[in-house]
């Protein structure tokens, strides 16, 4: 009798887990499975796996040359898929590129609009090339960004070109927006407007935004999930909130002299930074245990502080450079 119950629970559990996995797969707007890209023999993207939930704002972070743009170019059909799988909105990049581009909007890192055209001509060209088109929203954004209809595009400022590109991308009503460094050309004020616009768009229509950036403070403002890549490899992918709750810094001071390696030996401590007589410990996971351990060592003051995304990013990259990647991979 007892064994039968456990059998039942087993079966129920299996059922549950199987439905759960299919559901999570359906809930992904973008899924990369061991994507690998190379220029000749130089591997630029190495076994990259990403999971972007539908409706999320996803920050794709990494230093210059990390392979962000190459990844994005593969997704939007500018480079052929070399190895691995990429699924956008449930469609395979390798075979359904044309269909994918009907529902995916892409904004390039640098201006890719035709300079000799007027704004209104460019809008018309984009309309003809798009699968869906919302001229109401396009007119709305043209007015909002105060883009002159009659002006030639090459006479617009960098920021205006970016805003026009975004207007055109939004005009095609994409379910997934892929933005490559969308704000790199903008001044701070414009950047703020731009970010607000993106967030409003997403929240209104349940669209997904996947954007690459190395401006971490701006990612922190708008992203709800981030991935950090370095040299083509994924270092961490997580929700921003859980990343921030997991990564903490502990500030501490001792009345007596302490060896740094004593502090490094505390489980959970990843790095010890000495700031005069004070120490700053970077901690992953159980900050409370580290605090208790520090009290045991006789610390005179202990304080847990939050880390901002930039500090977390730097910590991960330093881990990576010191070859401690295998330790720092979560789960």
């Amino acid at each position, binding site marked *: 009798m007892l064994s039968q119950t456990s059998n039942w629970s087993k079966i129920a559990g299996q059922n549950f887990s199987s439905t759960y996995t299919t559901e999570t797969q359906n809930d992904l707007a973008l899924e990369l499975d061991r994507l690998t890209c190379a220029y000749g023999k130089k591997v630029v993207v190495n076994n990259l796996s990403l999971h972007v939930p539908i409706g999320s704002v996803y920050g794709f972070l990494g230093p210059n040359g990390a392979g962000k743009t190459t990844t994005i170019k593969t997704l939007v059909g*500018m480079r052929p898929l070399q190895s691995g799988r990429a699924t956008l909105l449930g469609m395979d990049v390798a075979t359904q590129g044309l269909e994918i581009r009907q529902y995916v909007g*892409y904004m390039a890192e640098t*201006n890719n609009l035709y300079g*000799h055209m007027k704004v209104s001509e460019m809008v018309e060209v984009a309309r003809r*090339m798009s699968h869906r088109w919302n001229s109401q929203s396009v007119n709305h954004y043209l007015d909002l960004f105060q883009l002159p209809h009659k002006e030639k595009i090459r006479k617009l400022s960098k920021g205006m070109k970016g805003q026009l590109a975004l207007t055109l991308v939004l005009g095609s009503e994409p379910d997934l927006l892929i933005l490559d460094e969308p704000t790199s050309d903008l001044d701070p004020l414009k950047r703020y407007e731009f970010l607000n616009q993106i967030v409003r768009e997403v929240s209104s229509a349940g669209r997904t935004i996947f954007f690459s950036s190395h401006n971490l403070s701006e990612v922190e403002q708008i992203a709800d999930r981030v991935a950090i890549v370095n040299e083509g490899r994924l270092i961490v992918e997580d929700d921003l909130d859980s990343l921030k709750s997991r990564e903490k810094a502990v500030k501490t001071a001792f009345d007596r002299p302490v060896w740094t390696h004593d502090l490094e030996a505390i489980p959970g401590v990843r790095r010890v930074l000495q700031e005069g007589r004070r120490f700053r410990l970077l901690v992953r996971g159980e900050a409370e245990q580290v605090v208790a351990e520090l009290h045991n060592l006789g610390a005179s003051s202990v304080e847990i502080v939050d880390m901002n995304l930039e500090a977390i990013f730097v910590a991960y990259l330093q881990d990576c450079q010191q070859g401690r990647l295998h330790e720092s991979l979560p789960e």
Partner: protein
Amino acid sequence: MRGKFYFWLGIYAGLMLIGLIRWSPNQAYNVVTTDFTTGMEFTPFVVPLFISWINFSGFITLIAALFGGVDLVSDEVDKNTLSFLLTKPISRTRIYLTKLLLNVVGLTLIFGLSSGVVLFIDQLQPQRVNLLEALGDMLSVLTAAIIVIFLSGLISVFTRNTLQTIAVAVAILLGVSLSGAFVISKVASLLTPTVEVGVTIGILGAIGLLCGLFWSGLIAFNHKEF
């Protein structure tokens, strides 16, 4: 694209004007000249207007074709606008075909129109060209021009900007035509083929070249990383 069309339209209009002023009407026809050595009177042979026109406009057409094809792809790579096209829901085949077609149609239109006008005026002259011969001349110039468009289009898939494409295309065209002339002169002297055989070989070669360049350009564009 439209600017380029008007540019070449202007060039051809100018050429036509110069040609008409220079060679029309062929007044020499009515002039009776005396040969001093024999003392006999004769009317000198005058080259028909259309032949003069084809001779220099054919050369210009090849140059126009070269300039038409060279910025098929590489110009957009240079200006970064290709990423705008490639990421829209349009197949690469369609993009390449549309670009080729625009160039071919544009050049055919300009060349056909101006040659038609010249041919019409030529037919009003006392000494005129055979109509069938004229059409054959136009067709061969156009075929050569389309081959040049396809070739420079194919090259522009691989190069990074227009200047590079022009350099490579000119080098290839010069190399091919020089070595081709050499080979043909050797082969012709060996085989001494009849005119019919020569024409057939020429036509077949042109068709083969057209198809080969067209397909290789299309396939290269479809598989290139940008």
